[in-house]
Protein backbone atom coordinates (compact mmCIF):
# COMPACT_ATOMS: atom_id res chain seq x y z
CA UNK A 1 0.00 0.00 0.00
CA UNK A 2 1.00 3.57 0.32
CA UNK A 3 3.15 3.01 3.34
CA UNK A 4 6.39 4.41 2.13
CA UNK A 5 8.30 3.28 5.18
CA UNK A 6 7.97 0.21 7.29
CA UNK A 7 6.50 0.52 10.77
CA UNK A 8 9.16 0.88 13.38
CA UNK A 9 11.66 2.45 11.05
CA UNK A 10 13.19 5.12 13.16
CA UNK A 11 15.36 8.15 12.82
CA UNK A 12 18.01 6.56 14.96
CA UNK A 13 18.13 2.96 13.82
CA UNK A 14 16.47 2.96 10.42
CA UNK A 15 18.46 2.93 7.22
CA UNK A 16 18.78 6.28 5.57
CA UNK A 17 15.87 6.64 3.21
CA UNK A 18 15.77 8.62 0.01
CA UNK A 19 15.46 12.33 0.59
CA UNK A 20 11.80 13.23 0.41
CA UNK A 21 10.88 14.57 -2.98
CA UNK A 22 7.61 16.33 -3.72
CA UNK A 23 6.13 13.02 -4.77
CA UNK A 24 7.48 11.38 -1.65
CA UNK A 25 5.86 14.01 0.50
CA UNK A 26 2.53 13.39 -1.22
CA UNK A 27 2.76 9.71 -0.57
CA UNK A 28 3.73 10.37 3.03
CA UNK A 29 0.55 12.45 3.39
CA UNK A 30 -1.46 9.51 2.10
CA UNK A 31 0.41 7.21 4.46
CA UNK A 32 -0.37 9.53 7.31
CA UNK A 33 -4.06 9.41 6.47
CA UNK A 34 -4.05 5.64 6.59
CA UNK A 35 -1.94 5.64 9.74
CA UNK A 36 -4.44 8.01 11.33
CA UNK A 37 -7.17 5.45 10.91
CA UNK A 38 -4.92 2.60 12.00
CA UNK A 39 -4.17 4.40 15.27
CA UNK A 40 -7.77 5.44 15.64
CA UNK A 41 -9.17 1.96 15.03
CA UNK A 42 -9.48 0.73 18.66
CA UNK A 43 -11.34 3.90 19.56
CA UNK A 44 -13.50 3.67 16.44
CA UNK A 45 -14.40 0.05 17.17
CA UNK A 46 -15.24 1.06 20.74
CA UNK A 47 -17.29 4.01 19.53
CA UNK A 48 -19.31 1.86 17.15
CA UNK A 49 -19.61 -1.29 19.23
CA UNK A 50 -19.70 -0.10 22.82
CA UNK A 51 -21.23 3.34 22.45
CA UNK A 52 -23.19 3.89 19.22
CA UNK A 53 -24.70 0.43 18.81
CA UNK A 54 -25.87 0.23 22.45
CA UNK A 55 -27.36 3.70 22.12
CA UNK A 56 -29.40 2.63 19.11
CA UNK A 57 -30.34 -0.58 20.88
CA UNK A 58 -31.50 1.31 23.92
CA UNK A 59 -33.49 3.75 21.82
CA UNK A 60 -35.31 0.82 20.26
CA UNK A 61 -35.74 -0.94 23.60
CA UNK A 62 -37.28 2.17 25.09
CA UNK A 63 -40.29 1.53 22.85
CA UNK A 64 -40.59 -2.12 23.90
CA UNK A 65 -41.45 -4.12 26.98
CA UNK A 66 -38.11 -5.96 27.03
CA UNK A 67 -37.48 -7.72 30.34
CA UNK A 68 -34.19 -9.60 29.68
CA UNK A 69 -35.87 -12.98 30.30
CA UNK A 70 -37.67 -13.19 26.97
CA UNK A 71 -35.43 -13.39 23.89
CA UNK A 72 -34.93 -10.22 21.89
CA UNK A 73 -36.84 -11.64 18.92
CA UNK A 74 -40.06 -11.94 20.91
CA UNK A 75 -39.98 -8.44 22.29
CA UNK A 76 -43.23 -6.52 21.94
CA UNK A 77 -43.27 -2.99 20.51
CA UNK A 78 -45.27 -0.85 22.90
CA UNK A 79 -44.82 2.53 21.29
CA UNK A 80 -44.70 5.41 23.71
CA UNK A 81 -46.14 3.41 26.60
CA UNK A 82 -42.91 3.52 28.60
CA UNK A 83 -42.65 7.27 28.25
CA UNK A 84 -46.32 7.70 29.04
CA UNK A 85 -45.98 5.60 32.16
CA UNK A 86 -42.91 7.52 33.22
CA UNK A 87 -44.49 10.94 32.90
CA UNK A 88 -48.05 10.18 33.98
CA UNK A 89 -48.40 6.91 35.83
CA UNK A 90 -45.25 6.55 37.94
CA UNK A 91 -45.20 9.07 40.78
CA UNK A 92 -41.88 7.71 42.05
CA UNK A 93 -40.31 8.74 38.73
CA UNK A 94 -41.16 12.39 39.29
CA UNK A 95 -40.06 11.99 42.83
CA UNK A 96 -36.64 10.75 41.62
CA UNK A 97 -36.42 13.75 39.29
CA UNK A 98 -37.13 16.10 42.20
CA UNK A 99 -34.60 14.40 44.47
CA UNK A 100 -31.91 14.57 41.79
CA UNK A 101 -32.61 18.21 40.94
CA UNK A 102 -32.60 19.22 44.59
CA UNK A 103 -29.36 17.38 45.10
CA UNK A 104 -27.64 18.97 42.10
CA UNK A 105 -28.98 22.48 42.69
CA UNK A 106 -27.80 22.58 46.30
CA UNK A 107 -24.70 20.41 46.34
CA UNK A 108 -23.01 21.63 43.14
CA UNK A 109 -22.85 25.39 43.90
CA UNK A 110 -21.78 24.76 47.49
CA UNK A 111 -19.14 22.30 46.37
CA UNK A 112 -17.75 24.76 43.82
CA UNK A 113 -17.74 27.57 46.39
CA UNK A 114 -15.85 25.38 48.84
CA UNK A 115 -13.43 24.33 46.12
CA UNK A 116 -12.73 27.91 45.06
CA UNK A 117 -12.39 29.15 48.64
CA UNK A 118 -9.90 26.51 49.61
CA UNK A 119 -8.04 26.86 46.32
CA UNK A 120 -7.57 30.58 47.03
CA UNK A 121 -6.20 29.75 50.47
CA UNK A 122 -3.83 27.13 49.10
CA UNK A 123 -2.65 29.21 46.16
CA UNK A 124 0.27 30.58 48.09
CA UNK A 125 3.64 29.27 48.89
CA UNK A 126 4.11 28.43 52.48
CA UNK A 127 5.72 25.45 54.11
CA UNK A 128 3.60 22.35 53.95
CA UNK A 129 1.10 23.74 51.45
CA UNK A 130 1.58 20.63 49.32
CA UNK A 131 0.54 18.47 52.21
CA UNK A 132 -2.68 20.44 52.64
CA UNK A 133 -3.45 20.24 48.95
CA UNK A 134 -3.08 16.50 49.22
CA UNK A 135 -5.26 16.30 52.32
CA UNK A 136 -8.07 18.27 50.72
CA UNK A 137 -7.83 16.26 47.56
CA UNK A 138 -7.92 12.87 49.24
CA UNK A 139 -11.69 12.76 49.95
CA UNK A 140 -12.31 13.32 46.25
CA UNK A 141 -10.13 10.43 45.31
CA UNK A 142 -11.84 8.11 47.74
CA UNK A 143 -15.09 9.83 46.82
CA UNK A 144 -17.04 7.29 44.87
CA UNK A 145 -15.94 4.38 47.00
CA UNK A 146 -18.34 2.15 48.85
CA UNK A 147 -16.04 2.15 51.88
CA UNK A 148 -16.36 5.90 52.35
CA UNK A 149 -20.14 5.79 51.95
CA UNK A 150 -20.33 3.02 54.55
CA UNK A 151 -18.28 5.03 57.01
CA UNK A 152 -20.34 8.13 56.32
CA UNK A 153 -23.64 6.35 56.82
CA UNK A 154 -22.42 4.89 60.10
CA UNK A 155 -21.18 8.24 61.32
CA UNK A 156 -24.63 9.69 60.76
CA UNK A 157 -26.54 6.84 62.33
CA UNK A 158 -28.83 7.44 65.29
CA UNK A 159 -25.98 6.46 67.62
CA UNK A 160 -23.16 7.29 65.23
CA UNK A 161 -20.10 9.41 65.84
CA UNK A 162 -21.72 12.66 64.69
CA UNK A 163 -24.59 12.52 67.15
CA UNK A 164 -22.25 11.47 69.93
CA UNK A 165 -20.18 14.52 69.12
CA UNK A 166 -23.27 16.75 69.30
CA UNK A 167 -24.20 15.12 72.60
CA UNK A 168 -20.95 16.43 74.08
CA UNK A 169 -22.48 19.88 73.78
CA UNK A 170 -25.84 18.72 75.02
CA UNK A 171 -27.38 18.91 71.56
CA UNK A 172 -29.95 16.31 70.78
CA UNK A 173 -28.90 14.48 67.62
CA UNK A 174 -31.12 13.56 64.72
CA UNK A 175 -31.50 10.15 63.12
CA UNK A 176 -29.86 11.68 60.04
CA UNK A 177 -29.81 8.89 57.52
CA UNK A 178 -32.90 7.16 58.86
CA UNK A 179 -34.99 10.33 58.70
CA UNK A 180 -36.55 10.98 55.29
CA UNK A 181 -36.26 14.71 55.93
CA UNK A 182 -32.52 14.55 56.51
CA UNK A 183 -31.14 11.62 54.53
CA UNK A 184 -30.70 13.61 51.33
CA UNK A 185 -29.02 16.47 53.19
CA UNK A 186 -26.56 13.97 54.62
CA UNK A 187 -25.75 12.83 51.09
CA UNK A 188 -25.27 16.45 50.05
CA UNK A 189 -22.79 17.11 52.83
CA UNK A 190 -20.87 14.04 51.74
CA UNK A 191 -20.81 15.29 48.15
CA UNK A 192 -19.76 18.82 49.11
CA UNK A 193 -16.99 17.49 51.28
CA UNK A 194 -15.48 15.89 48.17
CA UNK A 195 -14.56 19.22 46.63
CA UNK A 196 -10.96 18.18 45.98
CA UNK A 197 -11.17 17.55 42.24
CA UNK A 198 -12.59 20.96 41.26
CA UNK A 199 -10.22 22.52 43.81
CA UNK A 200 -7.17 21.11 42.05
CA UNK A 201 -8.49 22.41 38.74
CA UNK A 202 -9.07 25.85 40.32
CA UNK A 203 -5.50 25.80 41.62
CA UNK A 204 -4.21 25.07 38.14
CA UNK A 205 -6.32 27.95 36.84
CA UNK A 206 -5.12 30.38 39.50
CA UNK A 207 -1.55 29.69 38.49
CA UNK A 208 -2.37 30.94 35.00
CA UNK A 209 -3.47 34.38 36.16
CA UNK A 210 -0.65 36.79 35.27
CA UNK A 211 0.91 38.36 38.35
CA UNK A 212 1.18 41.69 36.49
CA UNK A 213 -2.59 42.07 36.62
CA UNK A 214 -2.54 41.97 40.41
CA UNK A 215 0.39 44.35 40.49
CA UNK A 216 -1.40 46.76 38.18
CA UNK A 217 -4.52 46.51 40.35
CA UNK A 218 -2.43 47.23 43.45
CA UNK A 219 -0.95 50.29 41.79
CA UNK A 220 -4.49 51.46 41.07
CA UNK A 221 -5.22 51.07 44.75
CA UNK A 222 -7.44 48.00 44.65
CA UNK A 223 -8.02 46.10 47.86
CA UNK A 224 -8.11 42.33 48.25
CA UNK A 225 -11.84 42.03 47.57
CA UNK A 226 -11.69 44.34 44.59
CA UNK A 227 -8.76 42.35 43.15
CA UNK A 228 -10.74 39.16 43.59
CA UNK A 229 -13.79 40.66 41.86
CA UNK A 230 -11.98 42.46 39.06
CA UNK A 231 -9.03 40.20 38.34
CA UNK A 232 -9.40 36.71 39.78
CA UNK A 233 -13.03 36.03 38.92
CA UNK A 234 -12.91 37.13 35.27
CA UNK A 235 -9.57 35.46 34.65
CA UNK A 236 -10.82 32.32 36.31
CA UNK A 237 -14.22 32.28 34.61
CA UNK A 238 -13.31 29.67 31.98
CA UNK A 239 -12.13 27.33 34.74
CA UNK A 240 -15.22 28.07 36.83
CA UNK A 241 -17.31 27.29 33.79
CA UNK A 242 -15.46 24.05 33.13
CA UNK A 243 -15.92 22.95 36.74
CA UNK A 244 -19.56 23.96 36.73
CA UNK A 245 -20.36 21.86 33.67
CA UNK A 246 -18.37 18.91 34.93
CA UNK A 247 -19.74 18.95 38.46
CA UNK A 248 -23.33 19.46 37.32
CA UNK A 249 -23.15 16.40 35.11
CA UNK A 250 -21.38 14.59 37.90
CA UNK A 251 -24.01 15.69 40.41
CA UNK A 252 -26.82 14.21 38.37
CA UNK A 253 -25.10 10.86 38.37
CA UNK A 254 -24.61 10.29 42.08
CA UNK A 255 -25.20 6.63 42.70
CA UNK A 256 -22.85 4.90 45.11
CA UNK A 257 -23.63 6.87 48.26
CA UNK A 258 -27.39 6.75 47.65
CA UNK A 259 -27.20 3.04 46.99
CA UNK A 260 -25.18 2.32 50.12
CA UNK A 261 -27.23 4.60 52.36
CA UNK A 262 -30.49 3.01 51.34
CA UNK A 263 -29.23 -0.50 50.70
CA UNK A 264 -30.23 -0.12 47.08
CA UNK A 265 -33.82 0.95 47.70
CA UNK A 266 -33.69 4.74 47.63
CA UNK A 267 -35.14 4.86 51.14
CA UNK A 268 -36.00 5.94 53.72
CA UNK A 269 -39.36 6.61 52.08
CA UNK A 270 -37.70 7.23 48.71
CA UNK A 271 -35.93 10.30 50.08
CA UNK A 272 -32.63 9.34 48.42
CA UNK A 273 -34.09 7.89 45.24
CA UNK A 274 -31.61 9.47 42.84
CA UNK A 275 -32.42 9.20 39.14
CA UNK A 276 -29.65 6.70 38.49
CA UNK A 277 -30.79 4.58 41.40
CA UNK A 278 -34.33 4.57 40.07
CA UNK A 279 -32.92 3.53 36.69
CA UNK A 280 -30.90 0.74 38.25
CA UNK A 281 -33.89 -0.55 40.19
CA UNK A 282 -36.09 -0.49 37.08
CA UNK A 283 -33.51 -2.28 34.93
CA UNK A 284 -31.72 -4.68 37.20
CA UNK A 285 -34.06 -5.28 40.13
CA UNK A 286 -37.45 -5.19 38.41
CA UNK A 287 -35.91 -6.33 35.10
CA UNK A 288 -37.98 -3.81 33.15
CA UNK A 289 -35.18 -3.02 30.74
CA UNK A 290 -37.44 -1.35 28.20
CA UNK A 291 -38.70 1.04 30.84
CA UNK A 292 -35.17 1.62 32.14
CA UNK A 293 -34.01 2.42 28.59
CA UNK A 294 -36.72 5.02 28.23
CA UNK A 295 -35.55 6.54 31.50
CA UNK A 296 -31.96 6.53 30.27
CA UNK A 297 -32.92 8.42 27.13
CA UNK A 298 -34.80 11.09 29.00
CA UNK A 299 -31.79 11.36 31.31
CA UNK A 300 -29.46 11.81 28.36
CA UNK A 301 -31.67 14.47 26.80
CA UNK A 302 -31.98 16.28 30.11
CA UNK A 303 -28.22 16.34 30.58
CA UNK A 304 -27.70 17.51 27.02
CA UNK A 305 -30.28 20.24 27.57
CA UNK A 306 -28.72 21.41 30.82
CA UNK A 307 -25.26 21.43 29.27
CA UNK A 308 -26.60 23.45 26.35
CA UNK A 309 -28.22 25.94 28.72
CA UNK A 310 -24.98 26.26 30.67
CA UNK A 311 -23.04 26.86 27.49
CA UNK A 312 -25.46 29.47 26.21
CA UNK A 313 -25.41 31.40 29.49
CA UNK A 314 -21.65 30.95 29.61
CA UNK A 315 -21.24 33.42 26.75
CA UNK A 316 -22.34 36.19 29.06
CA UNK A 317 -19.91 35.65 31.86
CA UNK A 318 -17.03 33.49 30.66
CA UNK A 319 -14.08 35.58 29.67
CA UNK A 320 -11.40 34.22 27.38
CA UNK A 321 -8.32 36.38 27.57
CA UNK A 322 -6.66 35.25 24.36
CA UNK A 323 -9.91 35.36 22.44
CA UNK A 324 -9.17 31.93 21.06
CA UNK A 325 -10.24 28.75 22.68
CA UNK A 326 -10.53 25.69 20.54
Amino acid at each position, binding site marked *: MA*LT*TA*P*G*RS*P*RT*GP*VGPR*PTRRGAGR*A*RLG*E*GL*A*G*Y*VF*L*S*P*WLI*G*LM*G*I*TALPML*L*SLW*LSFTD*YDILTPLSEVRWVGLANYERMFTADPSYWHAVRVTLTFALVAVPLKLAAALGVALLLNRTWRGV*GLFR*GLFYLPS*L*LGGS*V*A*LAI*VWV*NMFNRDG*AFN*SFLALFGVEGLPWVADPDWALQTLMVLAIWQFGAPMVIFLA*GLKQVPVELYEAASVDGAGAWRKFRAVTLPML*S*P*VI*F*FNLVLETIHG*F*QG*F*TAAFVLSN*GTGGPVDSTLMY*TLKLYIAGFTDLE*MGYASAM*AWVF*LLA*IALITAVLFSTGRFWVH*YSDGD*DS
Partner: protein
Amino acid sequence: MLGTSVKSPAEIVNNIGLLPEEFTPGNYAEGWTNFDVSFGRFFLNSALVSLLTVVGNALSCLLAAYALGRLRFRLRKAWFTVMIGTLLLPGHVLIVPQYILFRSLGLVGGDWPYLPLLIPHFLATEAFFVFLMVQFMRGIPRELDEAAKIDGASPYGVFRHVILPLSRPALVTTAIFSFIWTWNDFFRQLVYLSTLEDYTVPVALTLFIDSTSQSAVGPMFAMSVLSLLPVFLFFLAFQRMLVEGINTSGLKG
Protein backbone atom coordinates in the same frame (compact mmCIF):
# COMPACT_ATOMS: atom_id res chain seq x y z
CA MET B 1 -12.74 5.13 61.13
CA LEU B 2 -9.41 3.54 61.89
CA GLY B 3 -10.36 3.74 65.55
CA THR B 4 -13.71 2.08 65.08
CA SER B 5 -12.12 -0.73 63.14
CA VAL B 6 -10.34 -1.90 66.28
CA LYS B 7 -13.19 -1.43 68.73
CA SER B 8 -15.18 -4.22 70.24
CA PRO B 9 -18.93 -4.33 69.43
CA ALA B 10 -19.86 -2.91 72.84
CA GLU B 11 -17.42 -0.07 72.51
CA ILE B 12 -18.59 0.92 69.03
CA VAL B 13 -21.95 1.80 70.55
CA ASN B 14 -20.75 3.35 73.79
CA ASN B 15 -17.34 4.87 73.26
CA ILE B 16 -17.49 7.99 71.16
CA GLY B 17 -13.78 8.76 71.40
CA LEU B 18 -11.55 8.25 68.42
CA LEU B 19 -9.33 5.78 70.20
CA PRO B 20 -10.59 2.47 71.54
CA GLU B 21 -10.10 1.71 75.22
CA GLU B 22 -9.48 -1.84 74.31
CA PHE B 23 -7.59 -2.67 71.14
CA THR B 24 -9.54 -5.31 69.22
CA PRO B 25 -7.60 -6.36 66.13
CA GLY B 26 -9.91 -9.34 65.83
CA ASN B 27 -12.22 -7.28 63.62
CA TYR B 28 -9.72 -7.63 60.82
CA ALA B 29 -9.52 -11.38 61.07
CA GLU B 30 -13.27 -11.60 61.43
CA GLY B 31 -13.99 -9.33 58.48
CA TRP B 32 -11.46 -11.17 56.34
CA THR B 33 -13.28 -14.46 56.82
CA ASN B 34 -16.81 -13.14 57.33
CA PHE B 35 -18.18 -14.64 54.14
CA ASP B 36 -17.82 -18.02 52.50
CA VAL B 37 -15.10 -16.53 50.35
CA SER B 38 -12.09 -14.89 51.99
CA PHE B 39 -11.68 -11.17 51.50
CA GLY B 40 -8.27 -11.93 50.01
CA ARG B 41 -10.06 -13.28 46.98
CA PHE B 42 -12.01 -10.04 46.58
CA PHE B 43 -8.78 -8.06 46.77
CA LEU B 44 -7.17 -10.26 44.12
CA ASN B 45 -10.21 -9.81 41.88
CA SER B 46 -10.14 -6.04 42.31
CA ALA B 47 -6.39 -5.90 41.68
CA LEU B 48 -6.75 -7.95 38.51
CA VAL B 49 -9.58 -5.81 37.13
CA SER B 50 -7.84 -2.56 38.05
CA LEU B 51 -4.43 -3.48 36.64
CA LEU B 52 -5.82 -4.77 33.36
CA THR B 53 -7.95 -1.64 33.06
CA VAL B 54 -4.84 0.49 33.53
CA VAL B 55 -3.08 -1.36 30.72
CA GLY B 56 -6.11 -1.14 28.44
CA ASN B 57 -6.72 2.55 29.04
CA ALA B 58 -3.08 3.55 28.67
CA LEU B 59 -2.61 1.61 25.44
CA SER B 60 -5.81 2.34 23.59
CA CYS B 61 -6.17 5.96 24.66
CA LEU B 62 -2.59 6.74 23.67
CA LEU B 63 -3.16 5.33 20.18
CA ALA B 64 -6.36 7.31 19.73
CA ALA B 65 -4.80 10.47 21.12
CA TYR B 66 -1.85 10.23 18.75
CA ALA B 67 -4.20 9.97 15.81
CA LEU B 68 -6.48 12.78 16.96
CA GLY B 69 -3.76 15.06 18.25
CA ARG B 70 -0.89 14.61 15.82
CA LEU B 71 -1.81 13.01 12.52
CA ARG B 72 -3.52 14.69 9.62
CA PHE B 73 -6.30 12.72 7.98
CA ARG B 74 -9.79 13.19 6.64
CA LEU B 75 -12.56 13.75 9.19
CA ARG B 76 -10.08 14.18 12.02
CA LYS B 77 -11.88 17.26 13.33
CA ALA B 78 -15.23 15.50 13.13
CA TRP B 79 -13.95 12.49 15.10
CA PHE B 80 -12.42 14.81 17.67
CA THR B 81 -15.81 16.48 18.16
CA VAL B 82 -17.47 13.09 18.54
CA MET B 83 -14.86 12.15 21.14
CA ILE B 84 -15.58 15.30 23.14
CA GLY B 85 -19.27 14.48 22.83
CA THR B 86 -18.82 11.05 24.38
CA LEU B 87 -17.03 12.78 27.25
CA LEU B 88 -20.40 14.15 28.31
CA LEU B 89 -22.23 10.86 27.86
CA PRO B 90 -23.22 9.48 31.27
CA GLY B 91 -22.28 5.84 31.76
CA HIS B 92 -25.71 5.08 33.20
CA VAL B 93 -27.34 5.69 29.85
CA LEU B 94 -25.38 2.91 28.22
CA ILE B 95 -25.47 0.40 31.02
CA VAL B 96 -28.70 -1.37 30.07
CA PRO B 97 -27.95 -1.88 26.36
CA GLN B 98 -24.29 -2.69 27.04
CA TYR B 99 -25.41 -5.28 29.53
CA ILE B 100 -27.78 -6.80 26.99
CA LEU B 101 -25.04 -6.73 24.37
CA PHE B 102 -22.46 -8.45 26.54
CA ARG B 103 -25.08 -10.87 27.76
CA SER B 104 -26.07 -11.89 24.25
CA LEU B 105 -22.39 -12.44 23.49
CA GLY B 106 -22.31 -14.83 26.45
CA LEU B 107 -19.84 -12.70 28.35
CA VAL B 108 -21.92 -11.91 31.43
CA GLY B 109 -21.22 -14.45 34.13
CA GLY B 110 -19.23 -16.46 31.59
CA ASP B 111 -15.92 -18.21 32.16
CA TRP B 112 -14.33 -14.82 32.55
CA PRO B 113 -16.88 -12.50 34.09
CA TYR B 114 -14.54 -9.52 33.95
CA LEU B 115 -14.57 -9.22 30.16
CA PRO B 116 -17.54 -6.81 30.11
CA LEU B 117 -15.65 -4.63 32.59
CA LEU B 118 -12.39 -4.74 30.64
CA ILE B 119 -13.30 -4.70 26.94
CA PRO B 120 -14.49 -1.06 26.92
CA HIS B 121 -11.17 0.04 28.36
CA PHE B 122 -9.17 -1.70 25.65
CA LEU B 123 -11.27 0.21 23.11
CA ALA B 124 -10.52 3.68 24.47
CA THR B 125 -14.09 4.38 25.51
CA GLU B 126 -12.91 6.47 28.45
CA ALA B 127 -12.81 9.71 26.51
CA PHE B 128 -11.43 11.65 29.46
CA PHE B 129 -8.05 9.99 29.02
CA VAL B 130 -8.04 10.43 25.26
CA PHE B 131 -8.73 14.11 25.78
CA LEU B 132 -6.08 14.40 28.47
CA MET B 133 -3.46 12.83 26.21
CA VAL B 134 -4.45 14.89 23.17
CA GLN B 135 -3.99 18.03 25.24
CA PHE B 136 -0.66 16.74 26.47
CA MET B 137 0.60 15.87 23.00
CA ARG B 138 -0.24 19.35 21.76
CA GLY B 139 2.54 20.48 24.07
CA ILE B 140 5.18 18.32 22.42
CA PRO B 141 7.02 20.44 19.84
CA ARG B 142 5.97 19.67 16.29
CA GLU B 143 9.54 20.15 15.15
CA LEU B 144 10.40 16.77 16.66
CA ASP B 145 7.92 15.04 14.37
CA GLU B 146 9.13 17.00 11.38
CA ALA B 147 12.76 16.18 12.12
CA ALA B 148 11.94 12.49 12.45
CA LYS B 149 9.98 12.60 9.20
CA ILE B 150 12.86 14.19 7.34
CA ASP B 151 15.02 11.39 8.63
CA GLY B 152 12.60 9.03 6.95
CA ALA B 153 10.37 7.99 9.82
CA SER B 154 6.82 6.88 9.10
CA PRO B 155 3.92 7.92 11.34
CA TYR B 156 4.51 4.65 13.17
CA GLY B 157 8.18 5.48 13.63
CA VAL B 158 7.30 8.92 14.94
CA PHE B 159 4.87 7.34 17.39
CA ARG B 160 7.35 4.74 18.55
CA HIS B 161 10.42 6.95 18.88
CA VAL B 162 9.09 10.45 19.53
CA ILE B 163 5.60 10.40 21.02
CA LEU B 164 5.74 7.24 23.09
CA PRO B 165 8.85 8.14 25.10
CA LEU B 166 7.75 11.75 25.57
CA SER B 167 4.25 10.80 26.70
CA ARG B 168 5.43 9.19 29.91
CA PRO B 169 3.92 11.85 32.19
CA ALA B 170 0.51 11.59 30.50
CA LEU B 171 0.68 7.80 30.66
CA VAL B 172 1.53 7.88 34.34
CA THR B 173 -1.37 10.24 35.07
CA THR B 174 -3.72 8.00 33.11
CA ALA B 175 -2.45 4.93 34.93
CA ILE B 176 -2.94 6.49 38.36
CA PHE B 177 -6.42 7.76 37.65
CA SER B 178 -7.65 4.62 35.94
CA PHE B 179 -6.35 2.51 38.80
CA ILE B 180 -8.06 4.59 41.46
CA TRP B 181 -11.32 5.01 39.57
CA THR B 182 -11.58 1.33 38.75
CA TRP B 183 -10.70 0.33 42.28
CA ASN B 184 -13.49 2.57 43.55
CA ASP B 185 -15.95 1.84 40.77
CA PHE B 186 -19.14 0.32 42.01
CA PHE B 187 -21.96 0.72 39.53
CA ARG B 188 -20.58 -1.40 36.71
CA GLN B 189 -19.08 -4.03 38.98
CA LEU B 190 -22.40 -4.32 40.78
CA VAL B 191 -24.20 -4.86 37.50
CA TYR B 192 -21.85 -7.39 35.95
CA LEU B 193 -20.66 -9.51 38.86
CA SER B 194 -23.16 -11.93 40.30
CA THR B 195 -21.13 -14.82 41.72
CA LEU B 196 -19.63 -14.41 45.17
CA GLU B 197 -16.20 -15.72 44.08
CA ASP B 198 -16.03 -13.10 41.36
CA TYR B 199 -16.93 -10.14 43.56
CA THR B 200 -14.57 -7.22 43.73
CA VAL B 201 -13.93 -5.34 46.96
CA PRO B 202 -16.64 -2.64 46.56
CA VAL B 203 -19.33 -5.18 45.74
CA ALA B 204 -18.20 -7.41 48.60
CA LEU B 205 -18.35 -4.50 51.03
CA THR B 206 -22.06 -4.06 50.36
CA LEU B 207 -22.59 -7.60 51.66
CA PHE B 208 -21.94 -6.15 55.09
CA ILE B 209 -24.89 -3.79 54.72
CA ASP B 210 -27.17 -6.57 53.61
CA SER B 211 -26.50 -8.42 56.82
CA THR B 212 -27.32 -5.22 58.81
CA SER B 213 -26.55 -6.98 62.08
CA GLN B 214 -25.08 -4.45 64.47
CA SER B 215 -22.25 -6.80 65.49
CA ALA B 216 -20.71 -6.71 62.02
CA VAL B 217 -19.90 -2.99 62.23
CA GLY B 218 -16.39 -3.64 63.53
CA PRO B 219 -15.44 -6.07 60.75
CA MET B 220 -17.19 -3.85 58.22
CA PHE B 221 -15.06 -0.89 59.23
CA ALA B 222 -11.95 -3.05 59.27
CA MET B 223 -12.54 -4.16 55.69
CA SER B 224 -13.43 -0.62 54.64
CA VAL B 225 -10.08 0.54 55.99
CA LEU B 226 -8.28 -2.18 54.06
CA SER B 227 -10.19 -1.40 50.88
CA LEU B 228 -9.06 2.23 50.96
CA LEU B 229 -5.45 1.27 51.62
CA PRO B 230 -4.36 0.68 48.00
CA VAL B 231 -5.82 4.02 46.89
CA PHE B 232 -4.24 5.74 49.85
CA LEU B 233 -0.80 4.25 49.16
CA PHE B 234 -1.12 5.07 45.48
CA PHE B 235 -2.02 8.58 46.45
CA LEU B 236 0.94 8.97 48.79
CA ALA B 237 3.35 7.62 46.21
CA PHE B 238 2.08 9.69 43.31
CA GLN B 239 0.65 12.78 45.01
CA ARG B 240 3.00 15.15 43.24
CA MET B 241 2.41 13.60 39.85
CA LEU B 242 -1.36 13.57 40.31
CA VAL B 243 -1.57 17.28 40.89
CA GLU B 244 0.93 18.03 38.15
CA GLY B 245 -0.87 15.67 35.83
CA ILE B 246 -4.03 17.72 36.19
CA ASN B 247 -2.08 20.94 35.81
CA THR B 248 -0.58 19.78 32.53
CA SER B 249 -3.76 18.31 31.14
CA GLY B 250 -4.52 21.60 29.46
CA LEU B 251 -7.40 22.71 31.66
CA LYS B 252 -6.28 26.26 31.53
CA GLY B 253 -9.38 27.54 29.79
